[in-house]
């Protein structure tokens, strides 16, 4: 860990972390129409983890079990590739996109583009990548458990 735990950062992290995560999800889905998207969203979420990391909140116990970064990466890639592959089953080409529109009462028209799902895959993958790099290079190389490995 870098330095000692900072009280300010720890406090900030407690409040910031969920907020930043929410923002990241928003940015991801907004990306189709305004600056943003899976990369940016994922990186923002990654940044949230960085803050958490800098605050010194251990990533290794609870987080490690719940969120194996490799799983994030794998899941993200599965989502992206499957989204890309689905149209093939309908006789279309790889990555052919579809646009679904629903009229939801009270909210109005809701539009979902299949490529947004693809972007979601990107989002998860990027989070996983940031997490994995951080955990690997940030951890104590001698005593800590191996990252992303079942031991």
């Amino acid at each position: 860990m870098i330095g000692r735990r900072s009280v300010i950062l720890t406090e900030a992290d407690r409040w910031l972390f969920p907020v930043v995560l929410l923002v990241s999800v928003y940015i991801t889905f907004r990306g189709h129409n305004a600056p943003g998207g899976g990369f940016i969203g994922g990186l923002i979420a990654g940044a949230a983890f960085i803050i958490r990391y800098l605050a010194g909140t251990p990533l290794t116990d609870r987080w490690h079990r719940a969120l194996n970064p490799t799983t994030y990466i794998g899941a993200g890639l599965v989502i992206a590739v499957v989204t890309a592959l689905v149209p093939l089953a309908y006789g279309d080409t790889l990555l052919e996109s579809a646009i679904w529109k629903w009229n939801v009462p009270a909210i109005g028209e809701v539009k979902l583009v299949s490529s947004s799902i693809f972007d979601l895959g990107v989002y998860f993958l990027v989070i996983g990548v940031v997490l994995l790099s951080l955990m690997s290079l940030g951890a104590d190389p001698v005593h800590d458990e191996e990252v992303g490995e079942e031991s």
Partner: protein
Amino acid sequence: MSAALIVLIGVLFASGTFLLLQRSLTRIILGVGIMANAVNVLILSIGARAGEAPIIGRDGEFTDPVPQALVLTAIVIGFGITAFLLALAWRGWTIDGNDDVEDDDEDKRVASAKPLLGGTEVPGDYQ
């Protein structure tokens, strides 16, 4: 086309090359980073003209979105490469306590050894 950006491209390429020529892996990685930035600025500034962000609904003349997409991909790939190089530097450091890029041992050995044929000297003894 902006002269300032062209100059910046030149400076970044020069600096990147210089850093790549150093022995310390850290500096080489810095060089890789700068080079990547150099190419990205180049693609954007040579491939497109400055303008309004290409978001439908905004006013003004849009700048070409394609270079942006290419550069975005390049930035992300560059991120991966830099992370991996840093891990290499870190690993190199844990092995031998420095981050200098050494010359290849085998090449050095061969350069100083006698020329051999199949592990033996050229055999010329038959009589």
